[in-house]
Every structure is written in structure tokens, then in C-alpha cells.
């Protein structure tokens, strides 16, 4: 059951292709389990197993096989089966190492099944008055197994030698019902008349934390009636690593949220609900509130303070079934318990987000671009995505390109850039940005509408990896071909879904002086047979790109350089955007690639804003570097002042050889000689000086230059240069003598 959540455009924008108007998709085709005589379906969130039971065995579907890159989704997932003793199955959970299976047989008995040896043992309640409400496995160091009873919690440790459970600790309290999620490791125990008083324990690997007792808010429908809170109305969700509890108040039609701290539970506010029946799930830290009656999903980003939904409510849809409604996708593949199973589907997605593919099609940027000045907040939102960081990143790049191409107000673009830069800076600080330059280049116009498209999402064009190195040595002009190749690669992506897989990595020296690891992934195929490889890749990517943060180099390559090519008209807009970018990077003390400066110079020169260019350079807004100096010299062909700036920069950077060569080239050979003597520059060929002096047709100068080299370079008198120019000098002198007489 691989769920796929994605944002898409709004109707007015027109999602190209499918006509599907939805933010959330269930991956199609769904996982089908056609088990004859299936009697029940259980889901174990600790081990991410879907467990349908038949009369005599369990069939296990392990979902790890379906990595989130596995698209198209393979419905023929392998399953394993275990035969266990006959008997009623009220509930079933695998131990976290999947070696044991715990099966609740009755309200007082849990049976344990050791898979390796096919042995079984049982655990019973001590007194008959006790009822087992449920149980779960835990990775808490104190215990392995927790039983929730109406009289409290029993914590057990599993003794693998004795093959028995040892009671570690008991927590006595009255429990009406409980909720637990493995992701949060939090168990909430409800008690009281209305079942609205809660005690919470967190059984994490750090130990057991007891949360303070708290009451949930419940509105009263009438004076004397007291509604009772049910287990279905309480959800534990984990968003951005924070644990929240969401509680449905059916009377007030509100969804209350509580945030758990170590020593307190704080009510956070309420979201309105529009359906008598709702379900809550979280995909990639986005809260999805399924309004089941209304058949729509509303998305919230709890991180932001606003209680406003991220987007308009739209129905849940099954990807691939454009016209179908959520109900069809929910029931597909399930017999009975439709809504229950449905919850589980979402539930899976909630907790095991990596089964869910969070595709945010680039259409979202169209939607945003067309609809709002909210780009900064959308980017902020995207920058917080952890799953599918590549896509979030790519999308951010796309958005950035779009806002610039559409010439949005500078202040707005500036805010957007601020978001990206500070996110990058943060990721540097927290170390989540591995500097794995793993980027996808997409042309922003291409709509990703289908599964076929997403199968090629990972493909990256890597030509630019090498071209950086190129540029930094060869200077300025080489960026054009590299850019072009970037684009052609991304276009070919569309057709490249069956190209052979190719990985390659190389080290790349960037301006900052750090060695970056670049992982090169070609377009890859996605047939079922490639599955193992896929898993590899996705893991690799996981480890390398855990953050959608965008480095300044990537900003240059995929935003500024790309935009500059497409941009028509007055380039001053782009210049101001670059200034805003520099402003942001300067605030965060991040270094910028010299090529961005080079670009700025080109733009200013194109506009003939040489005076401003000068102030950019003298004020060091464009930091001095060889690249910058060379571009100044290049742009200086049209403007002598700019050329001087370039020369000056070379001198200040102590690039003596270049400086002397250029002086000679300008015919300022005397100055060049002085400079060469001062800084002991011996790499410029004497012939150049001699040539320059010779062309000035001044015999005195030529003689002086000859004399200089004779003194400066030992053995100069024996070189052919000396002989040649000495001859020329003699000729000059005789001709001068001839004319003067």
C-alpha cells in the first residue's frame, strides 16, 4: 500500500493532462492481496507489516521492498507466510526484530510464536477481572513488550533463553481505552467517566517518560449530557519531530490539538472540521485531515503558526484513476471494513512516510505563481520537507526560476531568496546538507502528470559537474555549453525511462575550497527487475540528500544562469535579484560562486551601466577573484574604465603574470618592466616586451628594454630574442642616422 501524497494545481490553473484535481493521491495501483479465505486484516505499525490472516496462516507483506522510488508501483509484492496455531486472532504484532509474533487470543491471553523454532508460549492475566486492551513491542531499554490492561500497564522483558516474559514494571491505573503509535512511542491511556482524562507514557529508547495527566476539552451538547470520548477520536501525530495529539470534538466540530512536552501538555488551538467523520494522517510532516463525509482532504502545515490550510480542500484520489472518487480507491483491494482499512492505509502513510511518495509536481509553482505572493511561505514549507528532498529542492528551484522570470516584485523575490539561503545556512549548521550535489534539472514548463514521469524523476544530468571545474580554470565562456547540456539532458529525461542505469561519482573542487562528493546518476529504468538496484539508489540518495537546501552554487547554476538565458528585456531586474541574493548570503556569511559575480558583470555591461558596475567592484559587492577580473577585462573591451578595473583587480590579487602580460598587451611595456622587476615576474616572455617596444618604433625604448633583459635575465645575450632585436635596433639606428643626415 504505497500512498502518494502530492500537491497539485488548482482548477483554475488547469492541471495539464489527467484532469485530476487533488492534493493527495493514493498510489495506483494499490497493493492487492488476493488471499483466499481471508478472514481479517491487521496492520503492525512497529514492523510496517500488513498482515491478513487466513484460516491457517498469515501472509505477510513486507513493504520495505517498495521503496519510495519504486514507481510504477509493483503490486506483486512478495509476501512471506507463517503458519501459526489455530485460534481467534484479536490482534497481532511482530516483534521489532520480527523473530516473534504476539497474537492476542482472548481478553486475557496473548500467545507468542517463535518463528525460527515454531515454538509457542502464552501469557495470561493474573486475575480474571483484568482485561487486555492491547499490546505492543517496544525498543525501550527497560522492556521489550507492553501490555495495556484496564487496570494499567504491564512492562515485560523477553527472555530469549527461557523463552518467557519477565515482568519488569507495573503501572496501576484505570484505563478505558488507549492509543499508541510506534512512531511517537507514546501511549495515551484514557480514563474517567467521559474518557477525557489522559495519562501518557513515552517508551522511547531513552527510557520511560511519564507525561502529566491532562484533560481534553469537550463541548457539551446540552446541559446534562456528557459525551464520551472514543478511541477513534484521538490521534497521535508526529510532525517535524514534535508529538501532537489531535482530538475530535464532535459537538463543537473542532479538531483540538495538543503538543506534548516532556513536562507539560499544551493545547495548541483548534482546526475546524466539516465532516462528522474525519481521519487524520501525516505525510511528510504535512497534516492531512480527511473529511470523510465531504470526501475531501484539507492540508495543514502545523509548523507555521497560521491555522489556515495550505490549500483548498480537494478530494483524495487514486493516482491513475483520474475520475474516480476516494471511496473507490479506499475500498480497492480490501474486503469489508472499508473505512477501517482505509484508515489503515492512511495510517501506514502517516508513520512510514517513506512508503509514500511525496510528489509535489511542479504545477504547484504554477498555482503559486498565479495565485499568490505567498511564494516565500511556500518555499519555507518546501524547505522543511524531509522526504523526497530532491523533489522539494527541485521544486524550490523551479519556483525561484518562475518568480524571477515572471518579474515578481523584487521585495517578494527577495523574501523567497532569504528563505532559501537561510534554510541552506541552517542545514550547513545542522549538518544535514551533505553537499552532495544531487540535483535534477527540469525544465520548469514540463508538467509531471503521470507515473511515467515520476519514474524519471531521479535522473540527473551530470555534465555540469565537470563543467564547473572547466569554468573555474578556463574562465568565463565555457558555461554556455554546459548550461545547454543541462537542459537537453532534462528534456531527454522524458524519453529516457528505459535508459540503462549508470552511477558514477567523482570529486569536485569548488570555489569554497571544499571537496564535494558528487554522485552521478544517469537516467534509469524502472522495471520490476531492477528493484534491488532501486533500493540501493534510494538509500544512497537518502544519505546524501536529506535536505532540500539549495547551495549558492546551485542557485547560480539552476536559477540565475538558467533564468538569464530565458530572460528577455532589461537585465537590470535580474541584477537587483542578484543583489538581494548577495544580501542574503552576506547575512548568513555564505560564500558565493564567482560565476554569479561574472554574470552580474555581464548583465551590467550589457545595460552599459558601467558606472554602477564600477561601484559594485570598488565596494567589493562583487568580491575580487580571477574570474571576476577576467570578465571585467572582457567587458572592458567596450569600456576602458571597466578594463582598468579588471587590470587593477589582477594587480591587487597579485596575479603578477596576468597583470604583466596585459600591460604589455596594452603597450605599457615600461610599466610592465618596472612591475616585473619589482615582483620578480620572470614568466612573461621577453619577446613580448621587445615586440611591443619595437612596434612603438622608438629605438631608445627598444634599447632600454634590451638592456633591461640583459641585466635582468642572466644569459639573455645568448638567446635568439636578443640577437633578433639587437639586429632590429641596429637597423633602426642606422636608418635614423641616415635620415638625419
Amino acid at each position: 500500500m504505497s500512498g502518494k501524497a502530492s500537491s497539485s494545481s488548482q482548477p483554475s490553473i488547469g492541471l495539464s493532462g489527467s484532469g485530476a484535481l487533488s492534493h493527495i493521491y493514493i498510489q495506483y495501483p494499490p497493493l492487492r492481496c488476493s488471499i483466499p479465505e481471508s478472514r481479517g486484516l491487521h496492520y503492525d505499525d512497529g514492523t510496517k507489516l500488513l498482515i491478513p490472516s487466513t484460516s491457517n496462516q498469515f501472509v505477510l507483506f513486507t513493504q520495505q521492498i517498495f521503496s519510495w522510488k519504486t514507481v510504477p508501483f509493483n503490486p506483486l509484492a512478495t509476501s512471506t507466510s507463517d503458519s501459526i496455531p489455530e485460534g481467534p486472532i484479536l490482534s497481532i504484532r511482530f516483534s521489532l526484530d520480527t523473530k516473534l509474533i504476539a497474537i492476542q487470543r482472548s481478553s486475557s491471553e496473548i500467545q507468542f510464536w517463535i518463528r525460527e523454532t515454531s515454538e509457542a508460549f502464552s501469557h495470561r492475566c493474573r486475575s480474571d477481572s483484568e482485561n487486555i486492551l492491547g499490546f505492543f513491542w517496544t525498543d525501550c531499554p527497560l522492556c521489550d513488550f507492553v501490555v495495556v490492561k484496564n487496570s494499567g500497564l504491564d512492562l515485560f522483558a523477553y527472555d530469549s533463553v527461557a523463552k518467557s516474559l519477565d515482568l519488569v514494571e507495573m503501572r496501576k491505573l484505570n484505563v478505558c481505552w488507549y492509543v499508541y503509535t510506534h512512531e511517537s512511542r507514546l501511549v495515551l491511556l484514557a480514563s474517567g467517566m467521559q474518557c477525557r482524562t489522559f495519562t501518557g507514557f513515552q517508551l522511547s529508547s531513552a527510557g520511560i517518560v511519564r507525561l502529566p495527566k491532562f484533560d481534553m476539552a469537550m463541548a457539551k451538547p446540552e446541559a446534562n449530557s456528557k459525551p464520551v470520548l472514543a478511541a477513534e477520536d484521538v490521534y497521535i501525530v508526529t510532525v517535524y519531530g514534535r508529538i501532537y495529539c489531535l482530538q475530535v470534538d464532535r459537538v463543537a466540530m473542532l479538531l483540538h490539538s495538543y503538543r506534548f512536552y516532556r513536562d507539560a501538555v499544551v493545547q495548541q488551538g483548534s482546526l475546524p472540521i466539516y465532516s462528522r467523520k474525519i481521519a487524520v494522517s501525516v505525510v511528510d510532516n504535512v497534516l492531512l485531515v480527511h473529511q470523510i463525509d465531504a470526501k475531501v482532504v484539507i492540508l495543514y502545515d502545523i509548523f507555521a503558526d497560521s491555522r489556515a490550510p495550505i490549500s483548498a480542500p480537494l478530494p483524495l484520489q487514486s493516482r491513475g484513476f483520474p475520475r474516480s472518487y476516494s471511496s473507490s480507491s479506499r475500498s480497492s483491494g480490501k474486503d469489508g471494513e472499508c473505512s477501517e482499512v482505509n484508515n489503515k492505509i492512511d495510517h501506514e502513510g502517516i508513520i512510514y512516510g517513506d512508503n509514500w511518495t511525496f510528489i509535489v509536481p511542479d504545477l504547484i509553482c504554477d498555482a503559486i505563481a498565479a495565485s499568490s505572493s505567498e511564494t516565500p511561505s511556500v518555499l519555507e514549507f518546501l524547505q522543511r520537507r524531509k522526504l523526497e528532498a530532491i523533489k522539494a529542492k527541485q521544486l524550490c528551484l523551479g519556483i525561484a526560476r518562475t518568480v524571477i522570470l515572471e518579474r515578481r516584485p523584487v521585495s517578494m523575490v527577495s523574501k523567497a531568496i532569504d528563505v532559501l539561503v537561510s534554510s541552506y545556512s541552517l542545514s550547513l549548521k545542522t549538518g544535514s546538507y551533505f553537499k552532495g550535489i544531487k540535483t535534477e534539472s527540469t525544465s520548469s514548463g514540463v508538467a509531471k502528470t503521470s507515473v511515467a514521469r515520476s519514474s524519471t524523476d531521479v535522473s540527473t544530468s551530470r555534465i555540469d559537474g565537470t563543467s564547473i571545474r572547466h569554468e573555474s580554470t578556463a574562465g568565463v565562456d565555457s558555461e554556455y555549453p554546459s548550461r545547454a547540456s543541462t537542459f537537453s539532458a532534462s528534456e531527454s529525461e522524458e524519453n529516457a525511462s528505459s535508459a540503462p542505469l549508470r552511477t558514477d561519482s567523482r570529486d569536485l573542487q569548488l570555489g569554497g575550497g571544499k571537496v564535494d562528493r558528487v554522485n552521478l546518476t544517469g537516467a534509469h529504468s524502472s522495471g520490476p527487475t531492477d528493484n534491488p538496484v532501486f533500493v540501493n539508489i534510494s538509500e544512497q540518495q537518502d544519505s546524501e540528500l536529506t535536505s532540500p537546501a539549495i547551495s549558492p552554487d546551485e542557485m547560480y547554476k539552476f536559477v540565475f544562469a538558467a533564468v538569464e538565458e530565458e530572460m528577455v528585456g532589461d537585465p537590470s531586474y535580474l541584477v537587483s535579484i542578484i543583489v538581494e541574493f548577495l544580501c542574503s548570503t552576506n547575512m548568513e556569511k555564505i560564500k558565493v560562486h564567482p560565476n554569479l559575480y561574472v554574470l552580474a558583470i555581464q548583465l551590467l555591461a550589457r545595460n552599459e551601466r558601467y558606472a554602477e558596475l564600477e561601484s559594485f567592484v570598488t565596494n567589493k559587492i562583487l568580491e575580487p577573484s580571477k574570474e571576476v577580473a577576467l570578465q571585467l577585462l572582457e567587458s572592458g573591451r567596450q569600456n576602458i574604465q571597466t578594463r582598468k578595473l579588471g587590470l587593477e583587480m589582477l594587480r591587487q590579487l597579485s596575479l603578477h603574470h596576468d597583470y604583466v602580460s596585459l600591460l604589455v598587451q596594452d603597450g605599457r611595456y615600461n610599466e610592465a618592466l618596472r612591475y616585473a622587476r619589482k615582483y620578480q615576474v620572470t614568466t612573461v616572455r621577453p619577446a613580448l616586451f621587445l615586440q611591443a617596444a619595437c612596434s612603438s618604433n622608438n629605438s631608445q625604448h627598444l634599447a632600454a628594454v634590451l638592456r633591461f633583459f640583459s641585466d635582468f635575465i642572466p644569459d639573455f645575450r645568448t638567446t635568439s630574442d636578443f640577437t633578433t632585436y639587437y639586429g632590429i635596433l641596429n637597423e633602426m639606428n642606422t636608418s635614423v642616422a641616415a635620415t638625419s643626415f
Partner: protein
Amino acid sequence: MGLASASTATDGMQLCIFDLRRGQNEGQELDKILFFFPADLPFSTQLSVIGLSEGLITFTRIFSPEAACEIIEAERHSHVFYEAETDIWMVMVVEKGKDSDAIWRIDALRKVLKEVHSLFVMFYGSIRAMLEKDPSGGLIRSHLYPFIMDYLSDFPVGKKLQLPSFRDCLKERGTVQMLTMGREAAIEVQSLVSVLDSCAGNSSCYSMILFHDLLVSTTLSPDDTINLFTYAVLRLSPNALSSGVNSWSYIRRGSTSSHFVSGSALTHSGPVSEQIYHSSDTSPVGNNINRVTRALQHGKWYKGKDGFLVTDIWGVDVGSLVCATPTVWLQQTEEAMYLCPYQFKSLTLILLIPVSSILNGEQGVALVKQQLLENASLKILKVEEKLSKGWGGENAYHVSGYRYLLVDGDRNISRASPPGKVTTLAKESLLALSKLRDEVDLEKSRAKRDNAGCEKDLEVSIRAKNNAWAIARITGGKELYMVLEKASETLLYASDAVEKFSNRYCNGAFSLD
């Protein structure tokens, strides 16, 4: 020329503007005169000054058609020539050696002529264009007269006009003085600039930012920058606003500012001319019914509530009592622009909005101003804060032990020791440097004539009577002038000091070897 000078002993200076194309027939000579100062000189004297000048121009043109007469050095006078526009000449006559301060650097005087003309063109367009509009010459005379009188009123010291003399040899007119700022501030400023330039939607505005009297940023062409900067320092900067009233009290004595607002036909000549120079016949007051705006009028700018500087020089809309927004002409684009200065603390922003882009006049300008306040207020605050933090005060660019002037001729930028420090120099030192500069100016113009485009490097150090060193270095279009009074030892020592200065403050630009 002796004749002409003798009769003007009152002030020692004469300034005239004449058009060689006019008054070529006998009896119409007066037609040539577009402006004459002092205006109360008899026409015969005026004509003799102009006649001499014209004669010399015609004569020297035989040999040098492109650059005719530059100067006449007579025993007691210097005549400085400047061809402002084709065939329109400005000539300034100064008396020499009458008192100890009357020692001039000719180039500095010529820069005065150039400056006043450039400013005039910025506000009113070229003299020639105005002559073509009104061939009688009445229009141009009625504009030139108050304008130049207002301009000259910036020079008084005591009872006379104090023209740039040898004491000002560590200053360079016609250049801008820049504020040096850190990268962070510079980026902040640039960000503000892009907001300013996009204030009026699609039409491209220009902007200039000053901090105190120093230029922070400009998007104007170099020539326009100089003009507007000059004007801003004269009339708009916080210093100018606060000191405007005092510095010219002598000239203004007896006049009341209310005269100017009355809108009468007489206002253009104003009390200045009435009080001191009397109105002359060459200033045809009565011919022009339209009132003449006196762009350089003193003390007429004040800060409005919204932070924008306003003036009633350009008139007041009677109905709304809104002051008309001044307009200026850009040399480079030949475009008329609304001039909107805004001031926040020591920060002065000047926004230039194309007149053609504003359809509904004052209302449109008000809208753009509103826009500016909305979009840029925060940034202005930030920039002011940043610049104030880095501001070293009046003597920020003082380098102890040195008295210097640094000119970047390519960029029209100069920086100099603060005036207060220059005054500590001995007269001999200043005289020596002034003399040196005269020589260098000559050398420069010679080099320019001989081979245009090729830059000359130059290094001169001379020892003054008081053992001070006056030093000039020119390289790559940059000029450094310096007086070292304490480096009395040897030339080597002096040259060392220059080297140190160059490395420390000029990125080694003057370190020749």
C-alpha cells in the same frame, strides 16, 4: 584689457557670457551679451571686455580651430576662457596680486565656469536652445542673470566674492566625493537602489544617494552625477539645509523671502540684483511675463512632514497649495525628470522620475512618492543605520601627517584632506602646490592634445621655501597631490611617504616601482 579691469576695482572679478553668432553687425554689438557681471558696468566697458575676448578667440582659432584661446595672462589680470557651447563663450576676468590671496589656479577658475554652465543646462536646457526659442535673447538673459547671481552668492567671504584661489589647491571642483563603505553596507545600499529605481513601475527612474555631503550611490551617467551631486551639496544636503540661511546673509541683507513667492513678473531679478547690482538694461525684465524659476535660490528648500524635501521655487499650485516638483534635464538621455529629494537623518535620497512617465502631473508624482515610502522606508532606515555606524565623522578621511588630494579623473571622483586640516598648512606650502598644479594642468592638457587616449604618467616633487614637499603623481588616470610639511629631510623620505600612502590608501595605485 587694462581698461576693462580698471573700472571694476570694486570686486576684482568680471564674468561674461556672449554668443559669437549674434550682434555681428555694427550697432548691434549689445546683442552678443547674454550675461555680464557686474551688471552695473557701463556697456562700453562690457563691450570692450567682450570685444577683446572675441578678438582673441577669432585670432587663435586660425591656429587651433578646435581649442581656441584658453587664457590671457596680463600683468594685472587673468582672462579665463571657456567655450560652454559652440560659439557661446564664458570669460572670467580676475585681478592678480591685488592682495595676497589673489593668486589663482586657472584651471580651478575654469571649472567654476564649467560648473555654473552645467548646472544651468541641467535646469533649463542649453543656452543655444533657449536662444532659438526666443531669438531676441530676452528669455536667456532673464534666466542667466538670476541663476548666475545665485550661484555666485555661494562664494562670498566678507564683502567680496572669494573665488577658488591657491588656498583651494587641495580641492577639485567638478568631482564627486564618495563615501567609503563596507561590503555589507554596499549591498544594502544597492538593494535600496533597486527599490528606488523601480518606484515608478515600468518607467526607469534614476536615483542618487548621499550621506552627509558624500556620494553613496548613483545610477546616473557620470556627467549628470556631477551636476546633481553639486546641486545636492549646495542646496539639499542636511548641511546645506541648515546652513543655507547664514552663509549668504550678506547678499541677502534687506530682502525678504516673501518677495519670491508672490509670483510677480519682477521676482526673477529679485532683491539680489536690486540690492547690490541694480538691474541692468541687458536683463530685459519686462519682456518676460512668465516668472523665472531661480533654481539656485538660497534657503528655499525645506523638509516636509513625509521626509521629502520641498521647495516653492518652481511655484505653488494655487488651489491645493502643493509645491510644484522641480524638473531637471539629464544630459545623457536628454530627458526631463522630476526631482524628488527625500531626507532621513543624514541620508539624502534623490529620485529622478521621467516626466514623460507621469501623466497626471503632481498627483502622479505624489503617488510615486507614496510608493517610495511604502517600499523603501525600511531599507532606508537600515541603510542609514549601517552608514551611521561606519561613519568616521568629518575628519574620517584625514591621514595624519599628510595633506592630500586624490583625483580619479576617469571616474570624476576626488578625495581630500578635510578643509579644517588643510588650513593648518603654511601659505608657502599651498602656494607651492598651487603652482605645481598649474604646471601639471598645463602638462596634462598638452598631453591630451598631443595624443588623445594615451595616458601620461608623471611624478613631480618640489621643495617649497619653507622646506615642505609639494608632490604630484599621475598614473593611469589617477592623480595624487600632496603636501608634506614634516618630511623635511630628503626627497627619498618624501617619496617613501608617498609610497606608504599609496599602498595604504590607494591600493598601491601610485606605487610606481
